[in-house]
């Protein structure tokens, strides 16, 4: 990009209106981000009405977005109950939106070098699994639009279609850390065109090699280190488990 273009982009782009991050989504029915920042008066009605505490208030660190609502998909996805669009006093969320399948908060994106299923297939193609690989398919199973928004290719490889609502349920449930699937918010642009802020934050991005987490080969190594004969890997249910079920005896 030429210098002139760079300057032009910096000056023409209002820094307050085009600020995107992965897995940080506007609630369902939100108008385009630019318009949203103009319309949202930060009244928090959408935050109050969400029964799942999915909608959160942006904090100071999100620049002048303080107080605007966000769904942080990796913490708590939107369960598409469709309560919030109708309470917005300014139309920043489209109050006429009633059908959850029409929501487009963003689109899910699977990182194939982290996803367990992809790793499994890669592992298998490389000459048969050695019993370490795991099949996950969590995203496919938790998506409210299984087989529409997310499909299985070769019965194993999850693929996102344009029916994806961007609700982020798959992200919340994906078991890998860092997540193998994330939502690209609607309207997130090319980083070269994203203006001043993005340019600055890009400098802070870690190079792929220094990044934390596991690249594909690391993930396989990590999995291979789980050894059933040794100590049990720690595993905690995030719901209450019961040994006994009323009316049933073992």
């Amino acid at each position: 990009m030429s210098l002139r273009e760079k300057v032009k982009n910096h000056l023409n782009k209002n820094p307050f209106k085009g600020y995107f991050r992965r897995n940080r989504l506007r609630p369902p029915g939100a108008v385009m981000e630019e318009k949203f920042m103009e319309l949202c008066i930060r009244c928090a009605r959408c935050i109050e009405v969400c029964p799942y505490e999915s909608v959160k208030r942006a904090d100071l660190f999100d620049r002048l977005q303080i107080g605007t609502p966000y769904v942080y998909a990796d913490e708590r996805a939107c369960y598409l109950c469709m309560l919030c669009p109708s309470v917005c006093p300014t139309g920043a969320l489209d109050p006429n939106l009633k059908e959850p399948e029409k929501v487009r908060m963003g689109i899910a994106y699977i990182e194939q070098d982290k996803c367990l299923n992809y790793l499994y297939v890669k592992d298998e193609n490389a000459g048969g699994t050695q019993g370490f690989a795991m099949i996950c398919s969590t995203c496919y199973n938790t998506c409210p639009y299984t087989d529409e928004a997310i499909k299985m290719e070769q019965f194993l490889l999850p693929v996102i279609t344009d029916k994806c609502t961007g609700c982020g349920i798959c992200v919340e449930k994906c078991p890998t850390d860092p997540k193998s699937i994330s939502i690209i918010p609607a309207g997130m642009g090319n980083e070269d065109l994203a203006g001043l802020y993005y340019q600055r934050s890009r400098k802070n991005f870690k190079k792929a090699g220094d990044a934390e987490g596991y690249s594909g080969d690391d993930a396989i190594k990590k999995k291979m280190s789980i050894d059933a004969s040794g100590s049990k890997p720690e595993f905690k249910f995030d719901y209450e488990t019961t040994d006994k079920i009323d009316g049933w005896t073992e």
Partner: protein
Amino acid sequence: MAGQSKIKRYRRLVQAAVFMMMFIIPALNILEIYFIKGTFYSIDVGNAVAADPIAVFQAAMSSKSVNIYMALSVVIPILLMLFAGRVWCSWMCPYHFIVEGVSFVKRKLGMKKSFPVHTPEKKRRTETARLIILVCFIALAGVAGIPLLNLISAPGIISSQALVLVKFHYVTFELVFIIALIIAEFVFFPFFWCRLFCPTGTFLSLFKSERGMHLKRVSSSCSMCGSCKRACPMGLDPVTDGSSLLCHNCGDCIDVCPDNKKQETLRFISGRQHNFPS
């Protein structure tokens, strides 16, 4: 209007109720009762909505559009201002409630009241200054292209902090702004924020009308004791400035007026009746 401090008693009741509501509303919402929801930027009760007019005005300005939801949400607040004057400020605003607490503490501590002297000149200057400040603020929001003034709306911030506190059990950085304001209230003259800077209050007062409720000296005689002048938190002379946009109809002056005990001297009226030379 015989009983002293009668108005103040009702006012405190309303203020306390509104203050409690800030915490009760999110608690109700946690229980999935959505009859009433929102903050003091915008709140809805059943199907009735009310939004801070300056907030909606900015949204309309920056998006260059007005839709039916915006228009409907400012009807109630504007009607209230037209009929009852700037009562939001003195009767409901949580920030005003807190600042009245501050001036109470200041009095207890024996700090000087340091009201600016009530001269018609000073009053006029305050009245002009706050309008100019509002225009500057709006211009700033226009340049930023987003409803920027919501970030300094004291009642909105306080109520949304109450919401995050109840719902998510933390507070955010905006609280620092409120704390700074409260500290400033100790240092500067009383109610400096409400008198000069608050965009919500200034904008609301624009809808105050002579036809709505306002203060008036209704008796031809007045002992000119000046009690009302000293009591006015906005630094007005109630005998003459009843229809000033600064007056927020708190009624403190009516409560302190000694002449009111004998004969109605100072009271709220609507419309342009009872014209006495002052």
